[in-house]
């Protein structure tokens, strides 16, 4: 084909439509030694998309610490896993489904949950918990309420129906997410370590079996079209690229896969997610250093006459791919029949190092596995720090508001207010492991009778603070996660993350990503926490620019005795209240600064080692069972943390913040300033003194009374609770 001919121009247009650059197209031609056919071009375009190839982030991610004593499976597998003792491992992963949710929130969020569940049971772990990290525009936007409502219903629909408890999460409302909401779903699973399985195809001559749902035209091109480009006009037309979830089918596939693994019938297992059969087959072959032949004519279809390329790239949900020894295929299919789910032998493992696609006898594609999976060029990003605050400011609270009105404004801020309206739509109990339900402690606590202990899980990431300072904000997200675990007495075993950023080809999002990954690496190294997996979601932008850079960080920790876990609510009249940790409250990047329209570039840097030491001290104290409550000081500062502990208990408190004044804080900073490292504890005075806690006051009465120099708050519990519980009436009203 020569330049200038019609055919050449047409081919050019096609690869660009599929998201490949001219340079990348040239590389594909070079690697194949010819121009790619339709099937091949479709497959390359998906596997070389940002979503699958991490082409703008892979180099940065090499900074993260990925090796640790407790790691059973690290990055590169379907999910990370850590050893929890007694021959058991806990698997976990978080993944984004942002763009599908922005286009169709119910199905987008539902299939986000479905996808992350498959990642976890693909390694042989039974899913035991779901958590979600959600971001929307401000609540006064009709679009945001629509997206919130749809996403929450979608998560509930899938998680409730499949019988996995949704035990925690977080929701923030900020203007920069108005067009591009974030839906990050996390799944935690439990496996006997010896039953776990990897995704590497092995054994030349073994059969490749496709299980679960039939393959249809839904979700074609999701990974390249939706996940790897900015949202913009015409998103409605992208609805057909959003998949439709069927939790009943997934429930059958889940039980079927776990039974197959328990019976030792599978050589390897992989879920079909983004890029469908294309990525599953290519990644299995790549991991095993083998080739795979697939005959698309043997794939059970939802509708007739699908083209080979459609079959290869379809993102129809609830499908799994397994490698099975030929003599065991009948047994495998019998188990699939028992669970009333589909199974078909669609291919065979070869020693060619090629992915060959056939339609019956006809060859419709033939590509080296290496070129598909590892051939995509990795790009260096070109970061440049912006001059100042690039996002907007909107004043919703007058600086003259008195401290009590300010506290009420903070408690009723949608990002801080109780998310009961959200979590009551989720089954948080199924599985009988949930020791701490949502909002009763800083982390979800799940008992593991199998391992004779318990785990705690937290998911955190305040995008606004990361926007102020991507490095410091990301360090804080890791610290907050560690603090939340410490509050329930848990020691971190591993960390996973989902990096939600704007377009990495632009200098500012590139700079945000670069600084955030460095912050993540530094914080993990300082805390001695291993990164066992992660996910990257780039191109999160709308017409007004990038989202707040949002690294969502999740940790799983272990605790020996769940019966000793403190809650976040005060427990008894007369208990002492104390502050532990290197807390230096500052208004920069705070919820108060947001409400006053005073957000600006820059955050104070954290004393990571001191926070780590405080986490250890608090964790050990909680494990004795002698603390009455433990709560980390987060959004809205100390006044909000005190109000939350009081509301949860129905018990007031009398507090004097003079000790913070003596650290040099202004009254406002002491009341509403934010920053990492602060723990609010209550219990016997002697216990708090032994921890070196700064004494702040006592639990008691029906009012929250806080003195901070010449500023003071006296507020009834009922008034505070009404403000904190105002989200539901604003959504339903």
């Amino acid at each position, binding site marked *: 084909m020569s330049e200038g001919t019609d055919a050449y121009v047409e081919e050019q247009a096609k690869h660009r439509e599929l998201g490949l650059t001219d340079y990348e197209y040239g590389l594909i031609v070079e690697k194949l030694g010819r121009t790619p056919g339709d099937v091949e071009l479709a497959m390359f375009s998906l596997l070389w998309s940002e979503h699958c190839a991490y082409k703008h982030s892979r180099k940065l991610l090499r900074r993260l610490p990925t090796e640790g004593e407790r790691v059973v499976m690290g990055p590169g597998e379907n999910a990370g896993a850590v050893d929890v003792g007694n021959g058991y491992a806990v698997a976990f992963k978080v993944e984004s489904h942002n763009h599908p949710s922005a286009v169709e929130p119910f199905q987008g969020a539902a299939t986000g949950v479905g996808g992350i569940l498959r990642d976890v049971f693909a390694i042989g772990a039974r899913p035991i918990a779901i958590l979600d990290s959600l971001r929307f525009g401000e609540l006064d936007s009709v679009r945001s309420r629509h997206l919130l409502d749809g996403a929450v*219903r979608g998560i*509930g629909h899938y998680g*409730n*129906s*499949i*019988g996995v408890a949704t035990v925690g999460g977080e929701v923030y409302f900020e203007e920069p997410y108005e067009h591009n909401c974030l839906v990050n779903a996390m799944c935690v699973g439990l496996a006997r370590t010896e039953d776990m399985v990897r995704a590497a195809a092995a054994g030349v001559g073994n059969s490749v079996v496709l299980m679960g749902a039939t393959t249809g035209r839904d979700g074609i091109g999701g990974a390249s079209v939706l996940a790897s480009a900015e949202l913009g006009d015409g998103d409605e037309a992208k609805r057909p690229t959003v998949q439709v979830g*069927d*939790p*009943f*089918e997934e*429930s*059958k596939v889940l*039980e079927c896969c776990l039974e197959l693994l328990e019976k030792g019938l599978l050589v390897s297992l992989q879920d079909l997610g983004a890029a469908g059969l294309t990525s599953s087959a290519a990644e299995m072959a790549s991991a095993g250093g083998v080739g795979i032949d697939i005959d698309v004519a043997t794939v059970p279809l939802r509708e007739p006459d699908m083209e080979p390329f459609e079959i290869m790239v379809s993102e129809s949900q609830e499908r799994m791919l397994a490698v099975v020894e030929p003599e065991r295929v009948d047994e495998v299919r019998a188990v699939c029949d028992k*669970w*009333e789910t589909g199974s078909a032998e669609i291919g065979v493992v070869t020693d060619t190092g090629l992915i060959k696609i056939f339609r019956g006898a006809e060859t419709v594609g033939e590509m080296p596995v290496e070129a598909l999976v590892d051939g995509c060029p990795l790009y260096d990003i070109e970061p440049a720090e912006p001059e100042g605050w690039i996002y907007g400011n909107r004043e919703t609270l007058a600086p003259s508001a008195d401290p009590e009105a300010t506290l009420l404004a903070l408690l009723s801020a949608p990002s801080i207010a109780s998310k009961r309206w959200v*979590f*009551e*739509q*989720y*089954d*948080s*109990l*199924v*599985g*009988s*492991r*949930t*020791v701490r*339900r949502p909002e009763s402690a800083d982390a979800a606590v799940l*008992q593991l009778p199998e391992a004779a202990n318990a785990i705690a899980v937290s998911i955190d990431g305040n995008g606004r603070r990361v926007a102020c300072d991507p490095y410091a904000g990301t360090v804080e997200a890791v610290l907050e996660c560690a603090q939340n675990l410490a509050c329930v007495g848990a020691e971190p075993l591993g960390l996973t993350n989902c990096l939600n950023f704007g377009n990495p080809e632009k200098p500012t999002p590139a700079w945000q990503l670069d600084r955030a990954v460095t912050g993540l690496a530094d914080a993990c190294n300082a805390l001695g926490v291993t990164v066992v997996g992660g996910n990257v979601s780039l191109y999160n932008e709308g017409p007004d620019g990038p989202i707040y850079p949002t690294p969502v960080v999740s940790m799983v920790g272990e605790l020996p005795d*769940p*019966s000793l876990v403190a809650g976040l609510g005060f427990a008894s009249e007369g208990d002492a209240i104390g502050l532990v940790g290197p807390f230096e409250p500052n208004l920069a990047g705070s919820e108060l600064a947001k409400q006053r329209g005073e957000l600006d570039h820059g955050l104070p840097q954290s004393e990571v080692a001191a926070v780590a030491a405080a986490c250890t001290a608090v964790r050990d104290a909680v494990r004795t069972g002698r603390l009455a409550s433990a709560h980390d000081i987060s959004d809205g500062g100390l006044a909000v943390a005190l109000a939350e502990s009081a509301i949860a208990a129905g018990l007031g408190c009398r507090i004097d913040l003079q000790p913070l004044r003596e650290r040099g804080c202004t009254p406002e900073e002491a009341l509403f300033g934010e920053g990492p490292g602060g723990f609010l504890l209550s219990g016997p005075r002697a216990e708090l003194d032994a921890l070196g806690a700064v004494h702040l006051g006592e639990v008691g009465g029906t009012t929250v009374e806080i003195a901070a120099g010449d500023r003071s708050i006296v507020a009834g519990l009922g008034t505070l609770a009404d403000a904190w519980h105002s989200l539901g009436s604003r959504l*339903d009203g």
Partner: protein
Amino acid sequence: MIWGVLQFPGSCDERDALHACAAASGESHLIWHQERDLSHVDGIVVPGGFSYGDYLRAGALARFSPAMTTVAKFAAEGGPVLGICNGFQVLCEAGLLPGALLRNVELRFICKQVKLKAVGGEGDGERLSIPMKHGEGRYYAPPEQLDELEARGQVAYRYADGHNSNGSVRDIAGVRNEAGNVVGLMPHPEHAVDPLTGSTDGLQVFRALERFAA
């Protein structure tokens, strides 16, 4: 006593029920929905979940499962049968219990701890703290039928004041058949058998049926 817990494709709470039955009464086994022989158990639990996806109408398909034919016979012979949430819906669809379960009045799934009052039978008047979690749990029967049910003592559990979150008629959370050996309720006693996860009041719901075991 040995409980058998049915498992349909799409069941969710069958393992929880299995554990609860064992905690309450000593022994329990899972029963695959294709089984017809239930002679090895003394009581049956039809557990919660979304049998067959509940895409048609909750419980509408599961009632046709082979095991349900045997359950109907077992119930007619006076054996104890407990339907929880989706299991309650299945028993209503199968005609083993009166009434129907409609979508919650707020049209949303609700998961929360609620207070129940036991009505009639053992433990009459006791208050139980048990979680509810469902989207279609609004009990309904026509007024005349409700009058008859109440006259015959067939209301088994009511939501305490302020706890009827799904809009059930006359605060009804659970009902029994005339003989009393078949009970269905929307809240989940199997999630209230361990102080660590919130409450142990659910044990009574299982034990209240033990006297019907052969």
